[in-house]
């Protein structure tokens, strides 16, 4: 069991991360990550294996840095200007998985206005799994997995932080 304080601290981190991503605050978003953070959007949902199956995105920490650097150049055309976005995160379940480590499962809906070319409003819907770890007293994101309900269908550009 986790305490109410722990639950609240976890939720605050997850919500802050969502807001930084929505507002294209790339540096602030990156500051929430551990040095070995893994960022993963699998295509398969049932026990996916990134070493034998293609993922939509599978970044180690160095690749996350490249992604952030690209977004910060101001010429990542697919996000210039950044898509106006709002995401709602709900159904947050927190499991303690070790000393100061948590696995957090949640559901999300994200509305994105693709203003870079088509002007379409996209709905991105799915589940999130965060693994959190306390580093020097601060709770950080060690892994984020995003399972889109339509990952096997044709999807438009996903160059923002999902």
């Amino acid at each position, binding site marked *: 069991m986790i305490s109410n304080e722990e639950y609240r601290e976890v939720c605050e981190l997850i919500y802050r991360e969502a807001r930084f991503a929505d507002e294209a605050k790339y540096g602030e978003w990156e500051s929430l990550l551990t040095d070995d953070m893994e960022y993963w959007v699998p295509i398969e949902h049932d026990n996916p294996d990134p070493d034998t199956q293609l993922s939509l995105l599978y970044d180690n920490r160095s690749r996350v840095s490249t992604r952030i650097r690209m977004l910060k150049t101001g010429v990542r055309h697919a996000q210039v200007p950044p898509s106006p976005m709002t995401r709602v995160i709900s159904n947050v379940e927190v499991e303690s998985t070790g000393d100061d480590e948590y696995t957090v499962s949640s559901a999300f809906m994200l509305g994105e206005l693709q203003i*870079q070319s088509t002007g379409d409003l996209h709905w991105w819907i799915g589940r999130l799994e965060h693994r959190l770890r306390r580093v020097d007293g601060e709770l950080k994101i060690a892994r984020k997995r995003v399972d889109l309900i339509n990952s096997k269908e044709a999807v438009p550009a996903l160059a923002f932080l999902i």
Partner: protein
Amino acid sequence: MALQNTNDYSALIGNGLVDSRVYRDESIFKDEMKKIFHDGWSFVAHESEVPNVGDYVRRSIGGEPYLVVRDRAGEINILSNKCTHRGTLLCQQEKGNVRGAITCWYHGWVFGLEGELKSIPYEAGSKGLDHQCLPKATVGNYKGFIFATLNSDPIDFLDYLGDGASLIDRAVECSPVQKIRLSTGWAKFLYKTNWKLQCENNIDGYHVNYVHASLARSIESRYNEAVLAEEEKLKTTAVDWGNGHSELFLAAGFESDLEWLGYSDVKPLKPFAATYRDQLFDAYEESRAARIVRDGPPHALIFPNLFLAETNIVYYEVNDVGQTVQRHTPMLLEGVSDEVNVRIIRLCEAALGPTSFFLPDDGVITERQQAAFQGEPMNIDLRRGLGREKQDGMGVMESHVTDEVTNRAFWNRYKEIMTA
């Protein structure tokens, strides 16, 4: 305003000048479906996707639903996915195994793996009626790459493929046992553009500095030679191989072994990569092995819809005049360690698809073209390099990497087919 059914393709397409109506006009799109995709050859699947009897994958051929199926004799058949009774799609899932026969879940008609109508429930009522088998596409197989046409009397498959065969050879020979495998699944990227804009973009060596500026400013990559050098210093070339097939010969800019797997003099080979290099030298005579290790697989378009994207296989699903699905999957190599193939999967995720470091930017830029074409028609100018391209004794046209010789290769073939 839409053109009528008698589109004059010799007027729409000049030497490097293309009327923008070809990207948005419904009647032109219908002509293309018929002449290019139904009557001509296009890429459909790789045989490694259906390894076992009864395995199938769903594919579309010029908008028509088909199944690529492995039959009991081990042959690959491409069968219509429409029940000949009332048209219901027989297989709804993307891939699977039909367990010996294909059953329609509307009224229970059963078809064999070669498309034959095997049984229908309550057959007395059908007595004397010539119920139909599933239509079959004509299949061409080159080193496991499956192409199809709905034409029962098409041009010879190898004549269509022409020098495209040597491009496929150069992809397949990266495996020391000359076998590739597409087993990790496909990702699908939706573009709101006509399919031909994607054909043009993927084989265009001129856009890299601008479309991919954010990557060039963020990372050292093997594309930097193609990106940052001055015009006269660029060593890479653009090649028209004939029959609409074309290539950006990136390897001309490579300076060390296995650059195409991400290695360089500042990023030395990991042990598994060194082992892979040794395997190639064991498998081939020395000069050939050295060339494969240096050059890697090609960056080439096989007309009309197959993009050999270095260590990836890409093709376009063409179902709508203003919308294209680009599918991609890593080209895994047989006969190498798992680490080599994991590396290839990671490269695929970095380069291709909706989250990748390249393609989302190509997507929005080409979507801006498509949006512009909704206005008055204009001529797209693809004449760059007309003054300096050179033809060799075999008829292969080569020019500077930024020259639009590759795009003209596509359009010349397109025009030939559409005016035939």
